[in-house]
């Protein structure tokens, strides 16, 4: 939208530009459509997905569930630096509350749907360590009636069953969307034109910095406080942590993911659910994420030809059900060690921070942005980043505002 930028402050103390920026951050809308999951918004599927989410029987050791690392009391994060289940991973456990608005999943975006993402940890040897056959056996033993109701039955092919599990998990996770926080109440008051004391003067000062001088909304914009994109922050390397290629690898991996939008497991509008069709070509990859590698950054040309997942022959652009895959440039040079911008919804409850959990507190995060120490080992730091150079009181205000984005914790696991 074209904005006429007015410098004068309104009766609420905000300029028109600030007011528009603040209102663009609230409220959280309904989840975006999930076109490859026919049951994404089916209440019965969500109920089934909740049971699956907390079912330790899906793991190979019978002791680990999705809920082992995605704890309701921590807004479905785990409070650990990196995920630890059957083994220890290399990345921080993100909340699942915002899956209803994403395009790419995991820190490196190697998955293109929430249901395919939900299926991934079941097979990861560092997480739940199962096989599709194990998952299918568990489902047949414990959820036959529920699957009959939601899917018409358990799929014959084990990977197709895994896809069904993922779709039910997504249906549940879509019900977990961030609930209104104190900031949303303030934004509602602002929209209504009423004076509001929902936020303190310090929190308002932090909000002013957030949408203004600190430029946080360059990446953390919209009601989910994320651009859904990937950036290299130039974080200090963790000793022995190795080099994580991030999006540079994920952008290539998503094109060959056996559960991606082009797979036979993706539902299509107007077609029967794709529950018994094997994915063409690729095999399920049970390797742990984060290994070095990934496409090499190429010269900056007008248009790259390295499309993540070209459309099958004869599928026109206008009719392609997978436009994100069709147009994704897997060799975009700035993907090197870039990671997904996380939502800031409920951020006060999801420490530690960054893709590898290396920053323990919001204060540490803000201090990082304030000075931007060090240089990235791979690629270059996002060019829009400059040291904030804020005072201690300004940093405190910014942190105070960030804490207003956190709602009450969801109920405990059933």
């Amino acid at each position, binding site marked *: 939208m074209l*904005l*006429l930028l007015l410098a004068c402050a309104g009766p609420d103390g905000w300029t028109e530009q600030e007011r*528009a920026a603040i209102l663009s951050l609230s409220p959280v809308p309904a989840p975006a459509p999930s076109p490859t999951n026919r049951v994404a918004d089916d209440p019965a599927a969500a109920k089934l997905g909740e049971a699956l989410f907390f079912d330790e029987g899906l793991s190979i050791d019978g002791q680990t569930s999705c809920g082992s690392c995605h704890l309701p009391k921590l807004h479905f994060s785990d409070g650990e630096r990196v995920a630890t289940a059957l083994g220890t991973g290399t990345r921080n456990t993100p909340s699942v509350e915002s899956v209803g608005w994403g395009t790419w999943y995991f820190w490196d975006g190697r998955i293109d749907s929430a249901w395919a993402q939900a299926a991934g940890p079941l097979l990861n040897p560092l997480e739940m360590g199962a096989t599709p056959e194990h998952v299918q056996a568990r489902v047949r033993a414990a959820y036959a009636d529920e699957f009959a109701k939601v899917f018409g039955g358990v799929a014959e092919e084990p990977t197709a069953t895994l896809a069904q599990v993922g779709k039910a998990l997504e249906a549940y996770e879509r019900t977990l969307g961030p609930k209104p926080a104190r900031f949303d109440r303030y934004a509602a008051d602002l929209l209504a034109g009423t004076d509001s004391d929902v936020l303190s003067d310090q929190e308002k000062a932090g909000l002013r910095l957030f949408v203004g001088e600190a430029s946080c909304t360059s990446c953390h914009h919209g009601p989910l406080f994320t651009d859904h994109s990937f950036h290299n922050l130039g974080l200090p390397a963790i000793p022995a942590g190795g080099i994580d290629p991030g999006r540079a690898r994920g952008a290539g991996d998503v094109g060959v993911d056996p559960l991606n939008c082009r797979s036979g497991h993706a539902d299509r509008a107007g077609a029967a659910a794709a529950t018994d069709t094997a994915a063409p070509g690729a095999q399920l990859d049970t390797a742990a994420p984060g290994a070095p590698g990934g496409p090499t950054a190429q010269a*900056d040309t007008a248009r790259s030809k390295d499309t993540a997942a070209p459309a099958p022959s004869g599928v026109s652009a*206008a009719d392609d059900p997978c436009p994100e895959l069709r147009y994704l440039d897997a060799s975009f040079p700035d993907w090197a060690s870039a990671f997904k911008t996380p939502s800031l919804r409920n951020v006060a409850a999801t420490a530690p921070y960054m893709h590898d959990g290396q920053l323990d507190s919001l204060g540490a995060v803000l201090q990082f942005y304030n000075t931007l120490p060090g240089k990235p080992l791979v690629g270059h730091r996002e060019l829009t980043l400059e040291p904030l150079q804020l005072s201690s009181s300004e940093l405190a205000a910014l942190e105070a505002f960030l804490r207003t984005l956190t709602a009450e914790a969801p109920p405990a696991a059933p």
Partner: protein
Amino acid sequence: MIALLALLACGGDAPAPSGGAAPTAAEPAAEPALSVAPLPTVNKLYRITWHTTPAPPPLSTLFEIEAVVTDPAGAPVEDAQVRINARMPQHGHGMATNPEDDPGTCDAAGACTHPGGRYLTRGMKFHMPGEWTLRFDVEGPAGADHLEVPLRL
């Protein structure tokens, strides 16, 4: 809500683009909110009108862009090759997508035309805010020419 803070043509004596009034989050602008009067290419071989769908182009979302190419007198140029792209000059990179140009109306022999001088490109995405340059390259009967339009998102 994404603010297009400035939108100026650099193709010569181009008229300023027109845009809607300042909307708020509660008052979404009616589409198309972004349209421009015909802009001359740098060597004034062609004139281009363009719009996006959706309009204005949202951040981090795929959008289409259609350019209507005419000669200086306003007659449609239907048999040109038009490539539309976008870059962030200060960042040294373009989009993180590979857009595709619609081939137009093609006959059995593969010869394609663009009725009305309309050229459509799909798969555009502004994946981050900042200074972008939208570029239209036209190779038509009068020769090759281009237009650049700076955008600030």
